[in-house]
């Protein structure tokens, strides 16, 4: 039976969920206060390699199919390399190789010569590298728009520049979304609004512990394409885009007390110099490349850094998702899991029971202060 599902948040998680629901024949309306992908969904490292997640297998299965499923390009590219500069890093990623091998994926260690064949911008300073024959990366901005367009192709609707002000409820269920002075009726709700997810849940007197922070990235002018563009290391994450730019982030974040920045300003800082230095060390043969831009984005984290993907008990037709700062790559699978929760109450392809909101019951009220996850003073 077809339902009308309201999705709050036009980022990758909400759009993917909306797309899965729309392609299954449900009526979908997405509410986005700015433009699709305007926050962290559109500005991140683009990585798609999350072995720690229960959705890992589905992430790996779906990405190679996404361009065809969506009908629009995501620039997905397979495989990842992590450059080791120290014996500690080599041991750490060897351990990761063991873990992922146990999960059925292939991974190998490269010597510096092999590394430079696959990532020619690397230099002589690398000790070794971990080559994962799985995972990958995609273009966040293009992927966001691909979800949005594919969702519309299945009859879904996206309301941009439309902030949600509240909900109407009846008999323990949400019956409507109040936005822009109008109440939009609905049968089910998905809240996937990034840092704003917590304040939206306050409407139901539910405390979702989230802390927001600002993180930064830089991008260089285009360079010749490396055979493998998804290369991490030296404390950085990122990718070489198919145009050839190096887009990299990492390093310290700034905790923000206010999670509801209405202004679109996402300022970057002189931290971009440290990112530049680390990137020049990681890719000595790119040290001449000019930096042409930096970004910042605001992302949220739960106390344990793990996602919440859960259908509430009351109101019982509300499904909540925050990916705790690691949402882009998992989004094909997350959207499918959310669609399952909305329609059947259970994820059909993975156990996600440890990602419930209930695990934070009993968390002390000052959990942020206790971790130092508060604005600098």
């Amino acid at each position, binding site marked *: 039976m077809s339902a009308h599902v309201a999705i709050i948040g036009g980022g990758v998680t909400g759009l993917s969920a909306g797309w899965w629901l729309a392609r299954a024949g449900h009526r979908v309306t997405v509410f986005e206060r700015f433009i699709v992908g305007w926050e962290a969904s559109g500005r991140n490292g683009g990585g798609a390699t*999350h072995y*720690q997640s229960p959705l890992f297998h589905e992430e790996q299965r779906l990405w190679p199919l996404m361009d065809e499923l969506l009908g629009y390009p995501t620039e997905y590219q397979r495989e990842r390399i992590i450059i080791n500069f120290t014996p500690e890093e080599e041991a*750490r990623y060897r351990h990761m190789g063991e873990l992922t091998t146990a999960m059925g994926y292939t991974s190998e260690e490269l010597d510096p010569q092999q590394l430079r064949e696959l990532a020619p911008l690397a230099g002589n300073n690398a000790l070794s590298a971990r080559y994962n024959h799985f995972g990958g990366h995609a273009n966040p901005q293009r992927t966001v728009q691909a979800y949005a367009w594919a969702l519309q192709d299945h009859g879904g609707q996206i309301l941009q520049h439309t902030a949600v002000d509240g909900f109407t409820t009846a008999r323990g269920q949400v019956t409507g979304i109040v936005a822009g002075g109008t109440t939009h009726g609905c049968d089910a709700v998905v809240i996937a609004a990034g840092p704003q997810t917590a304040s939206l849940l306050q409407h139901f007197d539910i405390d979702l512990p989230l802390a927001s922070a600002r993180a930064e990235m830089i991008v260089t002018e285009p360079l010749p394409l490396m055979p493998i563009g998804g290369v991490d290391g030296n404390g950085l994450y990122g990718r070489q885009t198919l145009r050839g730019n190096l887009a990299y982030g990492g390093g310290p974040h700034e905790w923000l007390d206010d999670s509801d920045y209405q202004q679109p300003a996402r300022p970057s800082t002189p931290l971009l110099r440290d990112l530049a230095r680390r*990137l020049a060390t990681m890719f000595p043969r790119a040290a001449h490349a000019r*930096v042409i831009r930096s970004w910042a984005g605001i992302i949220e984290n739960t106390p344990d850094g793990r996602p919440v993907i859960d259908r509430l008990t009351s109101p019982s037709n509300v499904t909540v998702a925050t990916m705790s700062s690691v949402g882009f790559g998992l989004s094909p699978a997350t959207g499918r899991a959310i669609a399952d929760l909305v329609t059947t109450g259970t994820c059909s392809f993975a156990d996600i029971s440890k990602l419930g909101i209930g695990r934070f019951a009993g968390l002390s009220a000052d959990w942020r202060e206790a971790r130092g996850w508060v*604005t600098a003073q």
Partner: protein
Amino acid sequence: MDTDRPTDPCAIDGKFAAPDEHAQLLVIGAGPAGLAAAIAAAEAGLSVVLVDENPVPAALMGLDVPLFYGQRMNPAVQEDARMVERIVAATPAIETAFDAGVDVRLGVTAWGTFANGAALNALPARVAGLADGTKCWMCGFDALILATGARDLVLGFEGIDQPGVMGARALHSLLARYDAFDGKRLVILGSGDLAATTALAALDRGLEVAALIEPLAEPQAAPHLVQALAARAVTILTGATIMRAAGNATGVTAAVVTAVGSDAPEYLDCDTICLAIGAVPAIELAGVLGCRLAFRGDLGGHVPVLSNDRATSVPGIFAAGDCAGLTDEDTSIAQGREAARHAAAWLQNPAPAPAGISAAPLPIGTDTTPYRMAWMRGLLASGGLQAPVCLCEDVNRAELLGIRPPRYLGCTSNKIAARDSSTLLKDGPLNPDQIKRLTRAGMGPCQGRRCREQIALLLADASGTAPSAIPLASYRAPVRPLPLSLLGEGASMQEGWDVWFGIRTQWIPYDAIGTAEEARLLEDGAGGNMHA
């Protein structure tokens, strides 16, 4: 500060190094406004550092930094010392500034300016990122005057990417400042005051002016300038536009012009085609700082919103001269002095920025927008949709308005073919930042200096929107392209550096959560944090 307060070792708190130097007043830009500001401030007893990126290295001039030089520099620009001498010789106020005690630095680029504000609290001081050809450093400041001038307005046509197509500001710079122009015969696009003064300056230097091209029915310059051009027998082709630039390996050989809307070509032999349609306030640093900006057609484009004391919306940051709205030299000097006076007063009594920045002043000149739009429509009518928009990323008008993915993706699905700016418009007003991400127009190393106005005009035209209503594509630091090695030199953050947030539980494999294995992994330094 409560020393017992728990801290996150991976957060930014306390990690920024102190700036390498400090200026009581930093002035960015040594044009008329910046020099007047720096001199007045020094005479009032302030300690002043004045930086100007010119002369930029020849390689950057080749990238059209900061003006649209169009490769028409002669080899003289490679001699750095000569270039500095030329600037000093062409700008007597620089010596006055030295004498007044201003710390004048030429060839120093301000690539970023940073202040705490919305979503940023971690900076220990307000700082500017500075760089010369060999090093990069941070300069703290108490007050800042932005006097960054203006840049060339670039509208595209076929062949614009050849050597010899350049902007009027760049031409003036090569002629008057550097004496390093490498052309002989010009076609000038436009017939307003900028075009007329450009033509007269070229004639005074012994250059030939083949014609001025004007899409409107009448010449647009002030009557005395039109008369001066007539007295020197300069042709103004009205009702005309440029279809394309013809050229060979050395660059432009002719401007192919036509009556607006016609496709009957006329060849005007020339080696240089000079865009003199307009200039645009250079607001990159104001944008990066988060200063409130507004579109003012009468001032040449987006400008920082200023209070009556020339203060931007960010406390202690002032603006003067063309970067605050196109104006003449005398007014720029007066604004520079005014900004210095207000900056000195603010330093005495640092007040927060006025909450209600004064109401926008009345238009102070003619709205430049209709003329620019007339040019854009003329170029569209005769040059069509295949003409370039973004030179860095090789995006043409059809690809911009069709929201085409870049050609290198080779994407030809029917679904993508069904999408264009008109379908995107159904989702909401067109936004250049969104369209940039999809088409790459404006995403290249020139950081949009050569295309953002054309993109805004094309999107306005396509969507039936006023150009003033098209959002400003964002500016991001570094506002000048700088090599990784140069930008990163001296950066020293080490402690608490993590790939991501440093939340160890984040990377525990799902199956291990809640098991003894989880505890073991968290104990084990190697297993605890494996961001991939």
